[in-house]
């Protein structure tokens, strides 16, 4: 490649000429300077071709030089779809083009270009539907041919994260409007964050020419920047993309490997406007660029974009561009002005004075290409004879650069997310944004203001509005007007041979859009879905307007009537890493957690908690569970039940409150006793259960299920916000750590553990509650029977939990104590027919279905859900939770398997396990009411086969409950 030749300073704002950088593009060495983008370095080396287009594999080079188009998507090492005009070069990076077969220069699939007529508009849309199977046939070919970039499957994870930022005001965009707004607000005392997508501040001041002399922008930028960078109230973020607007000015801003979540009281969007292309044949050739792309190349990178240029314009900006080109020694062969005359006669005269040929009321009808469509080599210029119509006679001019500007469209995308409406005046070719939410303002070209003085005023106006809202000013806000016209109303010149691109990303031509309307897709959203226009990486920044114009024209409507396609977040493509970085995934641990690990427990999740399922290897589940269960039934076991919910109710109305919340009666529950507590919701459905301990007349301690306690606590506090009872409700789940010490020898262990405590059956009978001190640890003791053996729940303050576990294991050594896990506990309670709410119940289960009628007191005036329970219990029951058994050698049903009666589903299995104590497969299931009596048979479908199980009465084990009452 040729050596890099650069323009003289002060051109090249972004590059550091003292720092040469070399990298490889398509395995060729390329030289550039620090600060160069990949695209600028390549163009400096006369290399325009960066990618191949999506459908036709046409050669493509940069269009905007601002990261707004998809023509510069390249492969950077293992990372696909990097924007070459946004990504800076660094030493030795490896860059490749994308979407080609063979080499970028000689793409075998460019031949597809000639098959374009076999892939008409709507090809994808239709292939998905019919004929049936067409998509299957095409998918492989299309995936292969249409794929962009290559993923590196051997990537190394990198650290991405997120951070909040807070400010009184965030200003998005640091062009003249943004800078003026930020300064005014900061001067008045507001804290300001200024967000800029590019690497330097200044926006259009860095590349645009605002006067004939070409001095104004530079002087003004220097002045504003000095003040902004020195201002203590302004935090500047460059190379930062504001990717969305969410309610109440919540703005995700991506900078490097971090996503900032900015929360601002006020927000000013000074996001500027996108220069628009002209639709004509071959408008996608490398060397056909926006006017602003040419001036960016010159002023940002000191790169000469060509030697002989033609400027095609629909506004006065093209004249300024011609002056910029001329100043840098680029021959301007012609200015082709689509308008009959320029708006600013002085500008026109001074350009004409320089000897530039100006063709008014004319357009470029076709760009002429070098071999293989690699670059522009000339233009075919015609007089415009009507809307989109041109004369037959052509003037051909040689050139290697075509700069175009059909006008500017406001960067409305983020505003659209905020609910603003974009309207367009067809006659005046002007946009208007309305319907902004409170605390969001716009300024500058996004607001349709283009002359520099007015833009600065508009920025200050927006700042005043924000300051007034912040209470930092009471200044009256005056409207800003600007009569500068920038849009040409019909910059579309369809060519019979096509390749007049409306959408570069999707290779869509003018006729493709018109054809979509002819097929009946009148709605702009349907046109988008059918044709895929605007769906590419540039998200309609350039295609939205010509599409709207074409659809409006083809359907005899105005652009305002057709509207433009909706813009949704994200504004620019974002990496999943930005969303996934530093995701918070809280977990909870009981104080005994590490003891379980030391004992070889197989841990399973229980909500945010981890609990031991059983102690042993993953492959030994059944054996471990049966051994553990056997040990609890015959000796003594210990299980960590710290995850159990706990709620304390204290105060004169504690009993009254319990009585209203739970189904049972609690007013007369004796102190020192526990009582089973069932909770129904207002629908009468059982939603939780637990054990209520009456510690004192005015003090209850009630347990709740691990997964249910948060909800139960919230319900309780909400009810009392209405009832105003004199009771304090406290969630003590994490305050207590607990174990269940269970088995025939558990009393002996307890006696050894707390010798002072009278654990005899008389002093501490079944269902009693006691408090004691275990070797210095204050403990609450509950005599419970959940697993059906003599057993004690011991609850202690969480900071003593691990010590308690150790003390019990030590005291239990003499009795061969063994820990048991949750799965074992599930088996043990199943043998006793005890339900687990939310496992053996569902969203419809009322107390009657669960045979919990005994736990419902209907003599009391009220409990939550009482009326619904009454209504449901009065109706004939359709199903019931029953116990069933199957022979030990039968296939084992799993939870969720269906219970079927005469072809009708009547219920499902809720729990099922092999019971070593019963020596059969036992379980619980919802069954039709006709099959619910003991002795009935229920049909269970297991792996497609029907089993007949016998309904039996509960419990399966120790029906007289004598073991737990010892």
């Amino acid at each position, binding site marked *: 490649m040729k050596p890099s030749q650069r323009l003289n300073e002060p051109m090249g704002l972004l590059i550091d000429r003292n720092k040469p950088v070399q990298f490889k593009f398509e395995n060729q060495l390329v030289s550039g300077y620090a600060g160069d983008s990949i695209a600028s370095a390549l163009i400096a080396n006369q290399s325009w071709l960066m990618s191949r287009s999506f459908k036709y594999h046409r050669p493509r080079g940069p269009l905007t030089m601002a990261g707004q188009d998809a023509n510069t998507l390249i492969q950077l090492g293992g990372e696909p779809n990097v924007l070459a005009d946004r990504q800076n070069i660094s030493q030795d990076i490896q860059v490749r083009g994308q979407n080609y077969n063979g080499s970028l220069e000689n793409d075998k699939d460019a031949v597809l270009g000639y098959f374009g007529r076999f892939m008409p508009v709507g090809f994808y849309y239709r292939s998905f539907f019919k004929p049936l199977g067409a998509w299957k046939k095409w998918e492989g070919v299309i995936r292969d041919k249409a794929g962009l970039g290559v993923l590196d499957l051997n990537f190394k994870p990198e650290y991405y994260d997120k951070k909040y930022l807070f400010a009184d005001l965030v200003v998005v965009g640091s062009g003249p409007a943004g800078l003026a707004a930020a300064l005014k607000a900061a001067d008045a005392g507001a804290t300001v964050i200024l967000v800029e997508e590019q690497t330097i501040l200044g926006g259009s001041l860095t590349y645009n020419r605002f006067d004939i002399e070409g001095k104004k922008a530079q002087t003004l930028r220097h002045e504003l920047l000095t003040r902004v960078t020195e201002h203590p109230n302004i935090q500047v973020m460059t190379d930062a993309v504001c990717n969305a607007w*969410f*309610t*109440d000015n*919540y703005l995700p801003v991506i900078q490097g490997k971090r996503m900032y979540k900015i929360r601002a009281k006020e927000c000013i969007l000074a996001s500027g406007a996108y220069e628009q292309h002209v639709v004509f044949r071959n408008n996608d050739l490398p060397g056909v660029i926006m006017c602003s792309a040419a001036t960016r190349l010159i002023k940002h990178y000191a790169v000469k974009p060509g030697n002989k240029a033609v400027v095609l314009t629909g506004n006065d900006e093209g004249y300024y561009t011609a002056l910029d080109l001329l100043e840098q020694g680029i021959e301007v062969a012609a200015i082709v002005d689509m308008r009959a005359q320029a708006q600013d006669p002085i500008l026109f005269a001074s350009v004409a004075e320089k000897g530039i040929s100006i063709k008014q009321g004319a357009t470029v009808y076709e760009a002429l290409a070098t071999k293989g469509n690699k670059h522009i080599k000339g233009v075919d210029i015609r007089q415009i004879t009507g809307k989109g119509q041109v004369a037959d006679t052509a003037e051909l001019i040689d050139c290697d650069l075509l700069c175009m500007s059909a006008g500017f469209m406001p960067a409305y995308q983020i505003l659209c997310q905020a609910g603003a409406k974009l309207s367009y005046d067809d006659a005046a070719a002007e946009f208007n944004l309305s319907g902004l939410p409170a605390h969001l303002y716009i300024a500058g070209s996004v607001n349709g203001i283009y002359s520099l003085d007015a833009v600065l005023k508009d920025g200050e106006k927006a700042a005043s509005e924000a300051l007034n809202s912040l209470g930092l000013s009471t200044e009256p806000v005056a409207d800003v007007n600007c009569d500068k016209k920038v849009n040409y109303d019909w910059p579309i010149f369809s060519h019979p041979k096509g390749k007049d691109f409306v959408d570069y990303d999707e290779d869509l031509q003018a006729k493709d859009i018109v054809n979509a309307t002819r097929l009946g897709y009148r709605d702009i959203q349907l046109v988008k879905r059918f044709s895929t226009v605007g769906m590419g990486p540039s998200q309609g920044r350039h295609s939205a307007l010509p599409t709207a114009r074409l659809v409006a024209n083809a359907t005899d409507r105005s652009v305002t009537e057709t509207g433009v396609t909706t813009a949704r977040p994200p504004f620019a493509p974002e990496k999943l890493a930005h969303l996934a970085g530093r995701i918070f995934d809280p977990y909870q641990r009981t104080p005994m957690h590490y003891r379980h690990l030391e004992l070889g427990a197989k841990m399973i999740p229980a909500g945010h908690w981890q609990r031991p399922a059983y102690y042993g290897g993953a492959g030994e589940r059944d054996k471990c569970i049966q051994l553990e269960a056997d040990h609890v039934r015959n000796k003594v076991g210990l299980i960590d039940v710290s995850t159990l919910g706990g709620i304390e109710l204290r105060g004169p109305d504690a009993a009254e409150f319990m*009585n*209203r919340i739970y189904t049972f*009666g609690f*007013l*007369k529950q004796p102190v020192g006793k526990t009582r089973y507590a069932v909770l129904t919701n*207002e*629908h009468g459905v059982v939603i939780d259960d637990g054990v209520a301990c009456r510690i004192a007349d005015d003090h209850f301690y009630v347990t709740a299920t691990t997964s249910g306690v948060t909800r139960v*606590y*919230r319900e309780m*506090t*909400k009810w009392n*916000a*209405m*009832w*105003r*009872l004199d009771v304090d409700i406290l*969630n003590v789940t994490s305050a207590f750590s607990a174990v269940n010490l269970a088995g025939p020898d558990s009393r002996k262990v307890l006696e050894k553990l707390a010798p002072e405590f009278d654990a005899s059956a008389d002093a501490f009978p079944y269902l009693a509650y006691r408090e004691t001190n275990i070797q210095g640890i204050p403990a609450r003791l509950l005599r419970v029977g959940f697993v059906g053996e003599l057993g004690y729940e011991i609850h202690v303050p969480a900071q003593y939990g691990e010590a308690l576990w150790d003390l019990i294991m030590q005291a239990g050594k003499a009795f061969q104590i063994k820990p048991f896990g949750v799965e074992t506990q599930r088996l043990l309670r199943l043998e006793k027919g005890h339900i687990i709410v939310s496992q053996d119940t569902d969203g419809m289960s009322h107390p009657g279905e669960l045979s919990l009628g005994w736990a419902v*007191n209907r*003599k*009391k*005036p*009220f409990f939550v859900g*009482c*009326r*619904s329970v009454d*209504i449901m219990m009065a109706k004939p029951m359709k199903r019931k939770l029953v116990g069933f058994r199957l022979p030990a050698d039968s296939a084992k049903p799993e939870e969720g398997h269906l219970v079927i009666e005469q072809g009708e589903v009547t219920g499902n299995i809720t729990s099922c396990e092999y019971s070593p104590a019963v020596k059969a497969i036992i379980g619980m299931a919802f069954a039709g009411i006709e099959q619910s009596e003991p002795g009935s048979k229920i049909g269970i479908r297991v792996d497609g086969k029907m089993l007949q199980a016998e309904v039996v009465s509960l419990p399966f084990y120790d029906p007289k409950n004598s073991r737990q009452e010892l």
Partner: protein
Amino acid sequence: MKILTCPLNGPRNISEFVYGGEVKDMPDPNTCSDKAWADYVFYHDNLIQIVKEWWLHAPSGYWFIAERHTASDEIIKTYDPSEIYNTRIEFSTQQEERA
């Protein structure tokens, strides 16, 4: 993300809050008709208007009431429930509890 102003904790991300349903009066469960009860349990007016809703600030466990417009989603005001519920609510006694 929307901001909701908690009367106790001030303006916070809505993700700190839990919705608790509309504020509505419970008919007397001992005397109302089945239909009135079903209306209370299952039906919502779902009108375009300002509604009173229960919201919980989860980190502090504080319930309050918010008045919100169902179309604009604007939160008009938030306040402590005692502004509506200021007296102890009693339920009529059917019969003395036995057990």
